[in-house]
């Protein structure tokens, strides 16, 4: 009885690749969870949904929206049904990301030093030099251990035949990892015993690995280096994440005003005077990092920090200038980088990408605007993009005019019909589009990818945009051990 009610028209609603359903059958990895759900009443499920909300609220896992002077606490919508990834799928993703990161890191080292890849014509020089995130301040500066990308959040999607594609490489200050950790904690409370029964791999070691990597970067040879997490402050929407990570790693959470640079060394102001800082895990963007070098009006950063960095007196994580590698126009060249640096075929595919400053590409895109998504090369968060299939004629015209004005600022990709996963909505399961952001950590010991990640879900029916600013939510993400 409940079976039909819960799953009612689920299959009929799916279009393309569904993570749970195939040919009227439930995939093996979802059976255990579905069994449990079907044994529950709608009331129980509603209660669980309510409990999840309450837990997010009472733990303060919220972001504050400031409206007419008063802060309103919002929670990032959470769907109670986990997204499940099989061991073999994960194995494939993990090897693919590892390969990609290796190449991206080599690219950053190259582009800020010898620039072989530009001289060999594999990546066009103009595209690098026209990228606003390419920092001349980083040229010729040997970063510790040659690591630029210490923390990466690589966005993956699946199209209708289930193939994984890389959608974006987030190499600057990727966020969301606290939701990977917290969502798991919530699931443990919502469904007792379900996680061990399904053989789900744990994600809890993430902060330990990150902390170990940060310690290893300390330029001072000391047993207990001072490590800090630099946050823009409590008004930042990811502030909760900053506090969580600082707490889980046992490091000091600092704001720009807590730090001061003296004689090319960074110190924090403490009740016992100044204390030297060795490693900064910063969640402040490059342009706000140092008002002496970048935006002079920034009060989030620390004056002089770049000079301390270049002198090698402090390590900064992630390195400055990484934006040149996750620029959406450069994205198209990542497969070429993998071939160039590693002499390997890319494991994970890129979404086909049209460069709009290339005339042939541009004309092709203009002729097929309805099946394209157009993105700003430096936009993020789902802002500044056009979904061709649902845009009005005026919107398309407006974008066309913008593109012609400055084609370097835009790329276009065919619209990918993202895979769907079951979400619990008003007493029923309904398919909603999802993506996946696993978090990779690179330290002197190599690249580690915690088995899990953040699954973002487009909660609006039919929507293909998963960003939280566009009505997206998240799910706990399970990677099965076997």
């Amino acid at each position, binding site marked *: 009885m409940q079976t039909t009610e819960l799953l009612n028209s689920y299959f009929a609603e799916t279009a393309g690749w569904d993570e749970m359903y195939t040919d009227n059958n439930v995939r093996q990895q979802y059976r255990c969870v579905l069994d449990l759900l079907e044994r529950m009443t709608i009331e129980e499920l509603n209660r669980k949904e309510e409990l999840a909300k309450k837990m997010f*609220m*009472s*733990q*303060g896992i919220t972001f504050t929206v400031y409206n007419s002077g*008063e802060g309103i*606490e919002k929670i990032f919508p959470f769907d109670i049904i986990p997204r499940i990834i099989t061991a073999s799928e994960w194995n494939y993703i993990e090897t693919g990301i590892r390969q990609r990161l290796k190449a991206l890191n080599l690219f950053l080292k190259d582009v800020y030093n010898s620039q072989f890849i530009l001289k060999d014509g594999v990546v066009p020089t103009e595209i690098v030099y026209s990228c606003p995130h390419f920092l001349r301040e980083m040229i010729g500066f040997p970063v510790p251990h040659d690591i630029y990308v210490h923390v990466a959040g690589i966005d993956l999607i699946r199209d209708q035949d289930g193939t994984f594609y890389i959608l974006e490489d987030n190499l600057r200050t990727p966020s969301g990892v606290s939701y990977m950790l917290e969502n798991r904690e919530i699931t443990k409370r919502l469904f007792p015993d379900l996680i061990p029964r399904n053989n789900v791999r744990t994600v809890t070691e993430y902060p330990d690995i990150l902390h170990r990597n940060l310690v290893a970067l300390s330029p001072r040879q000391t047993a207990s280096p001072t490590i800090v997490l630099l946050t823009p*402050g*409590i008004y930042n929407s990811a*502030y909760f994440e900053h*506090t969580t990570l*600082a*707490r889980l790693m*046992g*490091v*000091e*959470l*600092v*704001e720009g*005003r*807590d730090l001061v640079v003296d004689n090319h060394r960074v110190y*924090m*102001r*403490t*009740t*016992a*005077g100044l204390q030297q800082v060795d490693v900064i895990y910063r969640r402040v963007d490059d342009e706000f990092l140092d008002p002496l070098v970048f935006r002079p009006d920034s009060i989030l950063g620390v004056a002089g920090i770049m000079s301390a960095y270049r002198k090698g007196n402090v390590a900064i994580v992630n390195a400055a200038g990484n934006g040149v590698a996750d620029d959406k126009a450069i994205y198209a060249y990542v497969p070429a980088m993998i071939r160039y640096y590693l002499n390997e075929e890319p494991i994970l595919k890129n979404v086909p990408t049209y460069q709009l400053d290339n005339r042939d590409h541009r004309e092709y895109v203009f002729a097929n605007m309805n099946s394209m998504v157009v993105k700003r090369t430096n936009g993020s968060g789902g802002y500044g993009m056009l979904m061709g299939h649902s845009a009005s004629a005026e919107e398309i015209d407006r974008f066309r005019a913008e593109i012609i004005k400055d084609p370097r600022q835009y790329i276009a990709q065919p619209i990918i019909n993202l895979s769907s996963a079951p979400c619990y909505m008003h007493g029923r399961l309904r398919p909603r589009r999802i993506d996946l952001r696993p978090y990779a950590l690179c330290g002197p010991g190599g690249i580690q990818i915690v088995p899990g990640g953040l699954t973002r879900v487009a909660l609006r029916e039919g929507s293909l945009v998963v960003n939280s600013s566009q009505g997206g939510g998240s799910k706990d993400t399970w990677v099965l051990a076997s």
Partner: protein
Amino acid sequence: MLSRVADSLYWMSRYMERTDGILRMLRINYASSQDDIQDFSWRPVLRIFSYLNDEQAAAISNRSREVLQYMVTDRENANSVLNIVTRARENARSVQDHITKELWQCLNEFYHTVRDGNLVRGLHEDDPVSILDVLIRQGLLYYGVTDVTMARGEGYAFINIGKFLERGVQSADILDIKFSELDTARMDTTYWKYLLLSISGYELYLKTYRSGFDARNVLELVVLNQDFPRSVLYSVKQLQNYFERLNTDHNREAWQKLNFLIGRFHSRIKYSTVDSILQEGIHTYLKGVRQDLFEMGNAFNQHYFAYS
């Protein structure tokens, strides 16, 4: 510890102490207003805990529900429980890695409780005492969680310094205003009884003095009693006790400056008697107490919290 963190812990604690003081005061005064309907006035409470001028205070001082609403949930009143708890939480939010998760959740829940619309309605329509009790219990939970979960480090010292400094200021304020209202209010047993109830000193008073209510005894209890946890003397002793823990090799100069101020203040209270206070004049004496406490607050600000 970061100066900013010490500052936030100190203010989180001061705001929570103030919240507790306000809520107890409101609860007992409300009870008292039900006992004495003739000309009960909220004026002293408004003078202690709000920034209203005499005229504005007079406008609502006979209307209990309005005062409660103003003191608990009014968004315009900088000293309303809602605003103070919000500020305590903002401070806690920015130092979450220095307080325990339990403490953060406790403050966060307090914040959500005081913002709950049903609660506000309750103050208007139902029995306000049960609403105030809910809030007071949240505050007690805060004290308990702090005591049970917080590590006894520097942060804990700053939390307690804030708490006892605020408590000293409050006790001095309450006494000063209650004594200054003496001429106008009807001075009788109930007046002192409700004052003592509102600062949880009633039972101790009865056990210490067996001869009914007397202004001298109240003064002695609230300023000089060593065992009364809200007395000025007790507060300064605790303050000194926690301040001792900040004595390390770092920042010695700052420590010595503060130590001088705290020591001087402690002696001043310790070697006062009821007679010496009366001789000096209650108001002058209490004003001096407040000034000394403010001076200490400023010195902490200058030597320990200055970061920008």
